[in-house]
């Protein structure tokens, strides 16, 4: 594991840049534990101060320090993304492995349901959930709903691997040795499927963070809890651009773009590492 990481850092420039970007943003985000201000309190500081040695990234019209706001916001956004990823990976793994293992008619039924769920437009459904929940909507519910809407595509990929594992000699041995289906799946098949789970997890993380930013920008989650989308929403509400408070909107945008860039570079370089064909292509030229 560490050797793989070392090799990737040494030979893969995309991975190196992505790793540095993501790692520094994670460190920046965890700094919020040492924030001198309460990150939900407002009107603590003089409002609308431009970036200066006192307030590195300026202050908002609500009297908050933007540097510490972004730090807490990144932390919350990442927590949300990781929660969604973990839940949706578990769903995709269970569904994909079972469908591939049982095969035949059961597989067809499960995959038809799966394809049906892929075809549904997920944003209108999320918005509908918000609309009927209203004030009762919090980030945990949003995470569960987002997870339920984002595992299908990956379940299909996992299932195609499980389908081929089912034909392999060791699966038959395991069954003859008296292992039950859950045992075969967890002990025998899981190790082969895990790389795909990790790789799809990166894409899922990016998707989940995108959903959170979008819904927060629209004002559809608790806006008092700092999030990047929430900051942009407040800036829009105070017409920051018209008022000339550009730093209120520019820095959150820069932060989120850097986060996406870092995660995305990690995702494509891990994908390349897992797929040997593209690794060969890289070596060839």
């Amino acid at each position, binding site marked *: 594991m560490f050797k793989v990481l070392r090799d990737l850092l040494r030979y893969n420039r995309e991975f190196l840049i992505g790793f540095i970007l993501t790692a520094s943003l994670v460190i920046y985000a965890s700094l919020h534990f040492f924030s001198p201000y309460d990150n939900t309190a407002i009107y603590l500081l003089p409002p609308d101060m431009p970036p200066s040695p006192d307030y590195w990234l300026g202050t908002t019209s609500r009297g908050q320090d933007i540097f510490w706001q972004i730090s807490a916001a990144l932390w919350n956004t990442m927590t949300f993304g990781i929660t969604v990823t973990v839940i949706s990976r578990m769903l995709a793994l269970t569904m994909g492995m079972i469908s591939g293992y049982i095969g035949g008619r059961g597989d067809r039924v499960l995959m038809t349901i799966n394809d049906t769920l892929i075809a549904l437009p997920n944003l209108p459904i999320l918005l509908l959930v918000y609309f009927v929940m209203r004030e009762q909507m919090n980030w945990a519910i949003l995470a569960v709903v987002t997870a339920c809407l984002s595992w299908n595509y990956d379940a299909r990929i996992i299932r195609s691997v499980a389908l081929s594992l089912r034909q392999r000699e060791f699966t038959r041995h395991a069954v003859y040795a008296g292992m039950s289906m859950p045992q075969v799946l967890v002990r025998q098949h899981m190790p082969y499927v895990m790389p795909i789970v990790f790789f799809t997890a990166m894409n899922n993380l990016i998707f989940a963070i995108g959903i959170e930013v979008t819904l927060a920008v629209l004002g559809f989650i608790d806006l008092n809890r700092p999030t990047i989308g929430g900051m942009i929403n407040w800036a829009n509400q105070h017409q920051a651009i018209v008022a000339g408070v550009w730093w209120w909107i520019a820095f959150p945008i820069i932060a*989120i773009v850097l986060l996406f860039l870092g995660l995305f570079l990690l995702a494509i370089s891990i994908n390349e590492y897992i797929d040997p064909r*593209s690794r060969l292509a890289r070596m060839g030229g």
Partner: protein
Amino acid sequence: MNGFVKYLAERLFQLFLVIFLGVSLAFVITTLSPVDPVQVSLSQMTSFGAVDPRSVELMREALEELYGLQGTMLEQYFNFWRRVLTGDFGPSLSAFPTPVMTLIAAAVPWTLGLLGLSLAMTWILGNLLGALAGYFRNNTLLKLSGAAVMALHPVPAYITGLILLLLFGYAWPILPISGGAQMNLQQGFTLEYITSLIRHGLLPAMAMVLVGIGSWFISMRSLVSNIVTDDHVVYAELGGVKSRKIFSQYVARNALLPQVTGLALNLGHIFGGTVIIEFLFNYPGMGRLLIQGIYRGDYSLVLGVTTISIVAVAFAAFVLDLVYPLIDPRVRLG
């Protein structure tokens, strides 16, 4: 022919299943919610002052009938289906007494135009760039443009749109940033109106293209770079077939097939992006209607737009699936 009939039957079954599950899901979400929509609408209406309790009770009954919330769960479910099939979602509360369907019908052409045009542009451009980048792997210009579209790919639609809006609306104000066309112009086939239509559509369409192009680019590039090493391509190269012909007939044509399937699969996801872009640029389509409905607490409007968009996306994917046999003879011949 037999293969095509079987293919058609499968797709048709899938279409009905998507619509059935989607509409049922919308129903389940609305009924499982802990918030009573009638109560919410009532408190919105009565918040302006004291109202006679008897008229509140009458209003409650009227709203329950309007929302189709009378009777048992099963009755409500069938009632909901009747509404979907007849396309009658009742009047909109925020634009009373205009029926929800009228509002949706007015919004559909805008979304269809914006989404259709920008999606076609995105798909063609992304696949062309991706195929070229996969085939001519050492071209610096292609590498650079590839890096640019891939960097934009993970950024959510709202952020990309917002950056465009700030650039072309405030920093260098050359394009209109709100609405579908100039307000005071008469709709029609005049040069002035069409120019205004294009100018207003340019920024949202640009945002859509920038948001979507990366994923087509990435998948097309990897498809092409896999096909390039296939035996038939190597054989053609050795046989002296012109590289232009190899690219278009041997490589790109094969790689396009999964991209068409991918388009049908991703329509639902792409529609989500349109919702956000329309709202951001105040474009008078389905997406803006949906989000406005949410802000105004308009229950029938939100339910109507959600259901119609589920059905519309399923139909669009079905139409794409019907086109597929035209380009893939294997399905046609069975």
